[in-house]
């Protein structure tokens, strides 16, 4: 297992390095001079040149890249132009908010998508199956920022049941935090719930055709026991690994949800940084998201091996 893990981590290093190359050179594509943004009102050529020299912008690009990646490896992703805070510190403040939102969304998606997928597989080509597929198509196609707006209109503006925006930490007030986050989490969960429904259905349909399921039924086991005790245990494996992969998508999807519900998370951080031309933050967020994504890929691979007895035996 250790060797398998070490191999996966080794393969991830060049990928992450390439991401860092993209992220760094993307900023160099900028049409404007970043020094002008840093200098503010100052337009004296000598001052501008001094800033350029101080920041190392006169060095060859490769030297600049090596200096940037070297600092990034030690946790220094630069400083935010807007707040003056280190980028890593900013990400550390915002990430827990988004993780809470994404975890709640994942829970909701799992609670709906997996049982609905099992139901659709068992009721194959019957009304229940068609209904589940219709719901999945609807959830996949609805733009979640629009769904968010409609829910605010209905639940917050008209019914006054839940707050329309804001964030409360669960450590401060757990009940209020859940009340504030449930609607954004529901919105974020839609696409994932649909994907889980479709994959669970497809995975269960494959397993339900197996010989051992036929044998279990022939032995007289009750339908519920066959479906949940035998079929689902084997169908759940790809679903768990898929969930690990989709968690990364949730972090990205949170960008819009946080914008609609004014949640001060990771997604709102990148959008605010884009509009204030705070490129160190944009670079930092993209790099950290990619690193998180690669890590989730590795977790998915490891889970797949750990949960599959045949693969585990080969290690």
């Amino acid at each position: 297992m250790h060797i398998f893990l070490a191999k996966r981590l080794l393969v991830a290093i060049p990928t992450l390095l390439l991401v860092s190359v993209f992220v760094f050179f993307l900023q160099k594509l900028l049409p404007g001079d970043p020094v002008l943004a840093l200098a503010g009102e100052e337009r004296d050529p000598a001052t501008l040149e001094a800033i350029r020299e101080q920041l190392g912008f006169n060095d060859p690009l490769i030297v600049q890249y090596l200096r940037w990646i070297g600092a990034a490896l030690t946790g220094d992703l630069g400083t935010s132009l807007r707040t003056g805070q280190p980028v890593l510190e900013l990400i550390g403040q915002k990430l827990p908010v988004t993780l809470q939102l994404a975890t709640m969304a994942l829970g909701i998606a799992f609670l709906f998508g997996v049982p609905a997928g099992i139901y659709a597989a068992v009721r194959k080509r019957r009304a229940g199956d068609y209904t589940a597929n219709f719901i999945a198509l609807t959830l996949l196609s609805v733009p979640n920022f629009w769904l968010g707006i409609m829910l605010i209109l209905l639940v917050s503006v008209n019914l006054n049941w839940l707050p329309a925006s804001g964030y409360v930490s669960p450590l401060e007030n757990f009940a209020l935090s859940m009340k504030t986050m449930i609607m954004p989490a529901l919105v974020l969960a839609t696409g994932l719930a649909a994907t889980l429904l479709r994959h669970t259905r497809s995975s269960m349909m494959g397993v339900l055709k197996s010989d051992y399921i036929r044998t279990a039924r022939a032995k007289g086991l009750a339908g519920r026991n066959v479906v949940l005790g035998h079929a689902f245990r084997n169908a759940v494996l790809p679903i768990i690994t898929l969930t690990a992969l989709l968690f990364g998508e949730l972090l990205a999807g949170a960008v819009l949800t946080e914008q609609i519900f004014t949640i001060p998370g990771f997604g709102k951080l990148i959008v605010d940084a884009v509009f204030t031309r705070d490129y160190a933050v944009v670079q930092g967020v993209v790099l950290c998201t990619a690193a998180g994504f690669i890590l989730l890929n590795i977790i998915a691979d490891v889970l797949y091996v750990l949960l599959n007895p045949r693969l585990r035996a080969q290690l």
Partner: protein
Amino acid sequence: MSSAVQSPALPKKQPSRAWRSLRRNPSAIIGALIILPIALLAILAPLLPIADPNATSWTAIRLAPNAQYWMGTDEIGRDIFSRMIWGARASLLAGTISVAIALVTGVPLGLLAGYFGGWVDMVISRITEALLAMPFLIMAIALAAFLGPSLTNAMIAIGLSAMPIIIRLTRGQVLAVKAEDYVEGARAVGLNHFEIMSRYILPNIVPPIIVQAALTIATAIIAEASLSFLGLGQQAPAPSWGSMLNTAKNFLSQAPTYALFPGLAIFLVVVGFNLLGDGLRDALDPREH
């Protein structure tokens, strides 16, 4: 002797079978029935007898739908119905152009990686993996931010963000096809790499790429609406469904219907392309049956 004489026979194409299957597929028909009228309205927008989408009226601010303004008016008295039709142009254009960008860049790279293998494959595959490690929307936002906010740049950003999926799909299909006898035959008779790729491999990997393209249009339309919603796509005063939603969210209590129509339109078009993609998959890929 011309190479055409020596070339091994290509597998018989049966477009009519795929077409017949597509015409019988309820998903594809419903998808096409949703997309076609909206596409027609978008194309014919300049010829339709509708109000100027940018004409303001200070006497008709935030009106509810009525006989004169079928979908009401916005915060500066513009006709929402007219802006919806012109907004369809932005959405459909963004969907198709960005997918075209993804195809034009992704298919050749996938072909090269799959066909040549070796270091070409290694370089392209590593770059693809790195691009796939950056989530679609985050990458599109970062690119749109770096390129500057505009519909054109949003289309480029979405196209480049969708490209790695096309590269990976094309590469996989090429790997499956290049081991076929007719490709081996083409190589044996001395056809050059370009001829083999363009005449023997590309035509046989088109169906899954078409399916993916239809599904990616749906993703691209949502991505364009998302970028415009964030202010990184279509810029004011030009209409787009995403930017209309962005404005509408500020007037939820005063003009609730304003937010309804652009969202419904995005939803309908995306459902249409998803259904069409599913139908195309059933018709073009027999393994899915």
